[in-house]
């Protein structure tokens, strides 16, 4: 029976707040893409198959700077390397799902589905595989279609959105809101701190590579703090 407290609806409720951020972010991407010269179909198609705001902004930015296409693709994919890490982190919880289900799960791997799901799986250790899949698609339901819809609206309204709205800062604020509740242990805080320090020191690396290197350094620091804590 589907009650409003089923894992699916818990997932929907966990995903809903992110529309507040995803909507302006999707709008902004539509606007930026239109200004860069992408047709509406190209912008919407890109959102539908990439579903990764930061990488899409990176690609459009570099395209409009007339960067070589290979560099554009490599830079945008580098921004998306974290998706592979999310995929790996979800595997212990969802890896037993059927192959077609895993193919669909893979499509929905984004910052918010990953963050909400792993947090929920750690809290609800008793959940069955079915519950975990239901929650995951619950989170995805309000997010994935709206990313495409708001890109479409953004491309429609085009230049009507003024710069004064400062939508550029929607990304940092969302990520702060997402990540702060995850700072449960000293190891988590150490990982975050190491990631920040490394990232700020490595901005000289080209093509956002510093973010990837900093992320790996943060993960190593977090894992090492955990290991020593367990050994002590």
């Amino acid at each position, binding site marked *: 029976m589907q009650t409003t407290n089923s894992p699916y609806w818990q997932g929907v409720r966990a995903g809903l*707040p992110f529309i507040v951020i995803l909507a302006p972010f999707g709008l902004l991407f539509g606007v930026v893409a239109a200004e*860069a010269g*992408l047709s509406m179909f*190209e912008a919407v198609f*890109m959102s539908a*198959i*990439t*579903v990764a705001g930061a*990488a*899409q902004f990176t*690609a459009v930015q570099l*395209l*409009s700077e007339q960067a070589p*296409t290979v560099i554009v*693709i490599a830079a945008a994919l580098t921004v*998306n390397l*974290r*998706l592979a*890490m*999310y*995929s*790996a*982190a979800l*595997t*212990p919880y969802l*890896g*037993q799902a059927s*192959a077609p289900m*895993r193919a669909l799960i*893979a*499509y929905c791997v984004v*910052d918010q589905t990953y963050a909400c799901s792993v947090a929920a799986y750690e809290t609800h250790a008793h959940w069955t595989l079915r519950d975990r899949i239901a929650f995951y698609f619950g989170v995805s339901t309000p997010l994935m279609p709206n990313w495409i819809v708001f890109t479409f609206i953004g491309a429609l309204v085009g230049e009507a959105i003024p710069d004064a709205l*400062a939508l*550029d*800062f929607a*990304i*940092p*604020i969302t*990520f*702060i809101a*997402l*990540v*702060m*509740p995850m*700072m449960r242990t000293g190891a988590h805080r150490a*990982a*975050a701190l*190491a*990631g*920040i320090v490394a990232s*700020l020191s490595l*901005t000289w690396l080209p093509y956002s590579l*510093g973010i990837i290197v*900093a*992320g790996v350094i*943060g*993960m190593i620091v*977090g*894992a090492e703090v955990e*290991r020593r804590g367990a050994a002590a």
Partner: protein
Amino acid sequence: MIDKGDIWLTVLALGAGSYLLRFVFIGLVGDRPMPAWLLRHLRYTAVAVLPALIAPMVLWPPATGGAIDLPRLAAAAAATAVAWRTHSVIGSILAGGGTLYLGLWLVG
């Protein structure tokens, strides 16, 4: 004007590449057990990568050409403080957005 061929090459390669990155573990590894050291590192993916991604955007926002911007710093601080105290995603976003607009209005 961007070349249409370049746009489509980028769109298709980025879409395919992104899907591959998402699929690589969950699709190919499946339910084969992964070693403890790998899982230990993966636990810290989000808390390491997300702060690393935004730290430069907070300190040196692209919108100001990389110059330190007080309204944006204050907004990040407010979002952090509210998220830290309440664990509320919406509360944190509203605090950050409110502080940003107040700050931009004050700076004028």
